[in-house]
């Protein structure tokens, strides 16, 4: 039974992926792409990697899908912009070769796979956390997570840099040019409070069960965007000090905690003994806020000259 389920999932992912690559209408392909993300999420659940599944669905499918939908609406794919058959064949060949080589190597990998998971579980009690994934992200490999939050910040700077000087403090264009309909307004009024609660719960639960700042932040970002689409909340100008502090809070609170670690615990990004979980949760609050605001701003795009 479970084998059948896995086989169906695998075939569905392949079918959706082929639909994405097959060409044609941009909108349909973006929707298929979001489908790939959702199906991959299910596969991650089947592989017992719930944290990865949540991230895949929230960021890989949801937020990325939104950005792509906007791009498809702004720049519809015309026949002149469609690349040639030769290009498709070349890309397909490269993909096939890499796929075949990887398939062979994956089958050759040692079994049981060497893994650091037992070491992580053994060291986890020292961190007072229950979720080993959060342990890896915020304790053992905290440097990577800190810099990933910086990557997100730099990506936002890159998007903002696309608009001219005189717009540097203004607001992005609204996602929804038409006046909001009653249905959307109703949906947003009902869904946004519930969704916000889910987002906050996901981050809060992340210390002990699957979930965490990235997934929770993505859900919160989606709710903020929904409220803006329904016209319940204006698109903010990017010059506001509050908004800018919210963007900076996560990466730089994390960096500050890292530096404090030198003085309080003896090493950069080490947490003071007995307060590990408290400090980690505080850092995660800041990161969740920044991720939510940054992801929403990434979807909104560069400021377009409106004064909010």
């Amino acid at each position, binding site marked *: 039974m479970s084998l059948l389920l896995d086989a169906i999932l695998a075939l569905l992912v392949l079918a959706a992926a082929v639909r994405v690559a097959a060409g044609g209408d941009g909108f349909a392909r973006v929707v298929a792409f979001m489908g790939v993300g959702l199906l991959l999420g299910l596969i991650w659940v089947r592989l017992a990697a719930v944290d990865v599944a949540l991230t895949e669905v929230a960021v890989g499918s949801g937020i990325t899908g939104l950005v792509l939908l906007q791009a498809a609406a702004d720049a519809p794919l015309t026949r002149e912009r469609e690349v040639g058959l030769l290009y498709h064949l070349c890309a397909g060949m490269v993909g096939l070769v890499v796929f075949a080589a990887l398939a062979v190597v994956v089958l050759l990998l040692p079994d049981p796979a060497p893994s650091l998971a037992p*070491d992580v579980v053994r060291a986890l009690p020292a961190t007072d956390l229950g979720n080993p994934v959060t342990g890896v992200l915020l304790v053992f490999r905290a440097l990577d997570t800190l810099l990933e939050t910086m990557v997100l910040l730099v990506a936002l700077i890159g998007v903002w840099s696309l608009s001219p000087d005189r717009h540097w403090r203004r607001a992005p264009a609204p996602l929804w040019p038409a006046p909001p309909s009653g249905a959307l307004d109703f949906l947003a009024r009902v869904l946004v409070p519930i969704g916000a609660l889910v987002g906050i719960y996901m981050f809060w639960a992340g210390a002990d069960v699957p979930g965490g700042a990235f997934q929770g932040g993505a859900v919160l970002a989606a709710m903020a965007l929904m409220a803006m689409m329904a016209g319940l909340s204006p698109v903010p100008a990017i010059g506001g000090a509050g908004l800018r502090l919210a963007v900076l809070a996560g990466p730089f609170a994390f*960096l500050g905690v890292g530096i404090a670690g030198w003085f309080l615990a003896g090493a950069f990004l080490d947490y003071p003994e007995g307060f590990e979980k408290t400090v980690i949760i505080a850092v995660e609050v800041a990161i969740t806020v920044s991720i939510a605001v940054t992801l929403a701003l990434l979807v909104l795009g560069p400021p377009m000259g409106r004064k909010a």
Partner: protein
Amino acid sequence: MSGAVLFASADALLVVAVILPLFAVPVLFLAPSRIAERATVVVLGLSLLVALAIAGGVGRSGAAAASFIGGWRPPLGVGLRADGFSAFMLVMTAAVLLATGLFAMTTPGRSRAGGERMPPAFWMLLASVFSALNLVFLAEDLFTLYVALELLTFAAVPLVCLEGKLAQVEAALRYLLFALFGSLLYLLGVVVIYGLYGTLDIILVAREATASPGFVLALALMTAGMMAKAALFPLHLWLPPAHSGAPPAASALLSAVVIKAPIFLLVRFWLDLAPSTLAVAVAPMLAGLGAAAIVVCSLVALAQPRLKLLIAYSTAAQIGYLFLMFPLAAASSPWSALAWTGGALHLASHAFSKAAMFMAAGLIAEALGHDRIAGLSGVGRVVPVSLFAFGLGGLSLMGLPPAGGFVAKVMLLSAAVHLGAWWIAAVILLGGLLAGGYVLKVVVLALQRPAEPLVAQPVAHWREWVALALALVAVGFGFVPLEPSHFLFIGRPASWAGMVP
């Protein structure tokens, strides 16, 4: 040990090198742009001091410095490590980026060198590039390196289109696609390595690695990824439009240092990570592509109608020399050390001379309002200092004495000849000749008497002097002794032995 002492200790400096440049970002976000710009230059200067302190510490102790993040040792934690080669790269990068910052500072009443858009964006991206590069040079963990490459890509790509012209946005998008494709291939390779060895630490992997099919595939994927990012022929097509279209200060830092990060990693992968038998077998392929890059891209550079495009193609060609180094440095012979030193010296002198040349080209374009080579006749009378900087940088590219490029090429040549790699020696000589062609084409024209008096805008003199200072450093490398550098070999072969968190 108290926190304050720890903070200034050699090990902590490695972390400081990575995080210090990032502190410019919140200042740029919140403070008025003039003040924030000055503050960023101060941060760049402090970062140079940190790099010098690390290099000094490594040189004095004769051993690599290391730092374990959060006190967790690899394989569970992430380690940073500075050996002689890393320290060399840190100092070179910091010096070039500080010069770039000085060059890009706003002169009252004048256009910004960093582009016309988003005043603080150039500086934020510059600071992020700095942090990412330092992490590339220090990280000993394959996934941390992936994060560093991501940070580098997202900071470097927007620099190309800061002026917002359509052609620049197109060039930036192409750069982004190549760079992301490279990142993905690299990540695939890292996943395979974790599946094989259950660790991501380069030193721990190298200890167990054998030339198994899985490991060979992983290295192939990672190498292909880095080749795309380093613009090695035939994956160089993204580089000329991106590097020539960017504002001058951005071109200088992209061509001088950003492009060196994937090459540094290739050196790490093939000389530190791969078993030496495998490295000896693969290195000639890398060198073959390097040779093709030198010949093809130099010839294309000769045919360029615009100065900045010529310099950009010259970068794609000069990258090739660094790949010629691989078979020479991988051979287990006393001459390998000389080849290695020559490669490192070429890397540094190219960085300084190329930054100088892009800045000079930017100033020439600012003075004349265009950078068409055919219209450069007599520009030597308008911006003599800039032209001098361009010429000195070109001297180093040609490999003429007394410039750094000369000594680097002599080292590579003698290693090639003693190791019997005649074709490498031939390519080095041919490449020097071609470089002479494209540099002299510009300089000779610029020194001629103009047919009609040139109408030129004045340029800021101190910016000309920054370009000249960089060119002089490139020439200064010509006075290093012609022998294998002891400093570059400190801490090799890499090991965590004797290092405590």
